[in-house]
């Protein structure tokens, strides 16, 4: 990954592609790359849909290698949803193939002179920027079929659906999986809208004729990778739970804990949870000839994904993730897996973030547009988003906008981004992360790497709120670092428990690049990413005021435990003190 591909979309008449050296960005990957470029090159006060914003697409440091789990692709920009810096990442094949094509990043810059729609085709021979208005408003599935007809089935496609073309703030960027389906999404923060504002419908990647990226020390790399894979396979989360039930294994437990946001964050338990649990979903998928165990990218050994068939045994969608099942399920009072699967398909096809859409429909239900539990009604609302109707345009811009338009007080967002599937009143530490993350309400921003090595955890009393601030800080640092590697965050549990597995990850990076990084270096990497993001947000106008949860979380008790969010504002303001 020795170069950056800069695509100048305008204002000149004809877009241009330029291969640029890495320069100051050498050694960066994934979120480290996207945040560094955005922080340095995007004016924080620019309009997110304007020419000054840039969309940065970057594989991780270990993407495109034989290293396991290295398939995450980061997509960064100034977010039209939050107004701050954004990094969203996706699985699928994009990171692997882009890295093998030799690119540390693609940067979409400028804005086209007119409304011509383009797609890019990139292979070992170079880059083509092709105008094609015939792709306008195609769903992601039809778009991928068109590209398959044109270029064969060895391609990988990064694309936006009609939501991104219409520049809706809930729009995602889709990445195809190993079966060439657009099922993996960089969902959060409206990154798809920024791609749409650049006039780019799709990026088609073809690495035919190219090999895996070779490590500097192949023997050490192979040994470290073997240790890493062995660690993942032997751990009960990564080796058993996730492959068997996927991320939706969380439904029953969050529900039991009373932390499962239900009816637009009105209560913490949903009576229908067992019907839409990971256990129920895996059983149904297997019965119908789908798959309960499936990897989203080559090199994945956890295989937490799956394939969901309809009642006639035909493909309907990928196995909906926990966040999707919650957002369209319990949050909306819907307890039917087929309805949720249909919503998941529509979200993927139109290219919208499933979390934002589910939260938005929950707000719409609270507004009285339809009743909680109305599955067909929810499907119709998402169809309006795909069709770009007046109502669809409101909904497609997320929960905050929808709440404002319909006069709803109960809107679960931070920095304009909808909260994911954990109520912060029950799990207060996650609330700290929601409030303070540079990304807005984000459940992946404060995730775990081994406590002993990174100083996470220590002597925290499980019965007291003290220590949560420091924990959240350290977790955010660790997560930022992992996001730079291209590694799937689900490695974190195995790494948390097994220090040798974390060491194997560092050994892989060292063996690949010929470095001598230590755990402290990982910490410093994470801090540098967060600092760049915080600086950008401050210049964009953010202050401590934005690092807060909506007030109702402090005043409305959550059943069944009757708890409120109790972490003090002055404590939230110390998260980034280091």
């Amino acid at each position, binding site marked *: 990954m020795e170069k950056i591909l800069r695509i100048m979309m305008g204002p000149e008449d004809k877009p241009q592609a330029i291969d640029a050296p890495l320069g100051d960005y050498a050694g960066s990957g994934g979120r480290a790359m996207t945040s560094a470029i955005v922080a340095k090159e995007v004016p924080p006060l620019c309009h997110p849909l304007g020419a000054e914003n840039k969309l940065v697409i970057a594989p991780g440091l270990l993407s495109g290698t034989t290293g396991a789990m290295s398939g995450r692709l980061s997509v960064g920009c100034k977010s039209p949803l939050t107004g701050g810096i954004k990094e969203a990442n996706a699985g699928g094949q994009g990171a692997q193939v882009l890295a093998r094509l030799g690119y540390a990043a693609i940067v979409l810059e400028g804005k086209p002179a007119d409304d011509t729609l383009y797609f890019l085709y990139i292979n070992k021979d170079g880059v083509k920027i092709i105008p094609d208005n015939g792709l306008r408003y195609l769903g992601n599935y039809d778009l991928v079929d068109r590209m398959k007809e044109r270029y064969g089935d060895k391609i990988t496609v990064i694309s936006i659906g009609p939501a991104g073309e219409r520049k809706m703030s809930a729009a995602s960027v889709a990445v195809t999986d190993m079966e060439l389906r657009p099922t993996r999404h960089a969902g959060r923060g409206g990154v798809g809208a920024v791609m749409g504002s650049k006039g780019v419908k799709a990026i088609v990647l073809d690495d035919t004729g190219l090999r895996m990226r070779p490590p500097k020390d192949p023997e050490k790399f192979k040994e470290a990778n073997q240790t890493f894979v062995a660690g993942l396979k032997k751990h009960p989360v990564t080796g058993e739970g996730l492959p*068997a039930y996927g991320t939706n294994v969380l439904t*029953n437990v969050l529900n039991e804990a009373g932390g499962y946001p239900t009816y637009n964050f009105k209560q913490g338990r949903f009576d229908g949870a067992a019907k839409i649990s990971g256990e129920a979903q895996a059983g149904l998928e297997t019965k119908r000839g789908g798959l309960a165990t499936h990897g989203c990218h080559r090199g994945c050994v956890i295989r937490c994904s799956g394939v969901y068939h309809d009642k006639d045994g035909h493909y309907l969608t990928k196995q909906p993730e926990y966040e999707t099942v919650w957002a369209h399920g319990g949050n909306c009072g819907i307890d039917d897996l087929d309805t949720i699967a249909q919503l998941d398909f529509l979200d993927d096809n139109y290219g919208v973030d499933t979390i934002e859409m589910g939260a938005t429909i929950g707000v719409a239900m609270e507004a009285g547009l339809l009743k909680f539990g109305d599955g067909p009604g929810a499907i119709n609302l998402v169809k309006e988003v795909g069709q770009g109707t007046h109502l669809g345009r409101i909904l497609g811009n997320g929960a905050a906008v929808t709440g404002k338009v319909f006069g709803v007080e109960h809107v679960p967002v931070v920095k304009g981004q909808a909260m994911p599937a954990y109520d912060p009143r029950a799990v*207060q530490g*996650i609330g700290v*992360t929601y409030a303070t993350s540079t990304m807005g309400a984000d459940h992946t921003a404060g995730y*775990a790497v081994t406590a002993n090595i990174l100083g996470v*955890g220590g002597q925290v*009393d499980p019965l007291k709120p003290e220590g949560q601030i420091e924990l959240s800080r350290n977790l955010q640092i660790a997560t930022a670092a992992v996001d730079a590697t291209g590694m799937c965050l689900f490695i974190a549990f195995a790494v948390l428990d097994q220090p040798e597995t974390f060491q194997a990850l560092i050994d892989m990076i060292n063996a690949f690049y010929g470095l001598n990084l230590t755990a402290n270096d990982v910490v410093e990497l994470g801090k540098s990413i967060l600092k760049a993001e915080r600086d950008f947000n401050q210049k964009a106008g953010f202050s401590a005021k934005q690092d807060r949860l909506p007030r109702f979380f402090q005043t409305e008790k959550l059943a069944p435990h009757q708890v409120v969010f109790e972490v003090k504002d002055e404590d939230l303001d110390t998260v980034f003190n280091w």
Partner: protein
Amino acid sequence: MTSVKMDPQLSIKTARLIAFFPIFQQGFSVPIQKKQTILDFLCETNGLNPKVVYRQIQTLFLTGKAVDEMSGTLIKPGDTLALSAALPGLAGATMRSGGLLAGFRCAITHREGPAPSTLAKGLLTVKLFNQVIKALGPSFLKQGVLITVEQVRELLRGLAAEDWSDCSGLEINGQPVDPRDWSWPDWPQGRGVVRLQVLFE
């Protein structure tokens, strides 16, 4: 709860454990006869080695509150004990029993009060999730569990829909019946509980 005298005993292949998933997730009841901790209950009821229990059950709740120490937490009649393996994600790490991130969920962490002086008898509701279903489910069912009439009705309806495949025997109150001859309107309606016993082959 009133017990309805239509106690079924099923003999069925282990591969059909999935048919019982709703019962495990919604919960079933078992009697508790004496003062005991969660760990005692699991080891004595299921004959498990404590090491096995700790390895397989890494997330657990007692009446909705996360438990950090099985050996120090007493169960009492009316409680609900929910058992799970370790889970992914920040939420999974947070809910983990005795986990480093337990402080994140202090508002819903179980706090053990003073131990009761008298022996406790009554019913405990048990829920099993994910891999724990396979690990403990057959053992509980072999000993017999109390479930509602509605739960049994749903179970038998599901088995009937698959034409009783893999089911080698059904007894009601100790008498063998051929469910294919069975007239469904004979099944009692309304509320109540039955004792379900399942022998896996």
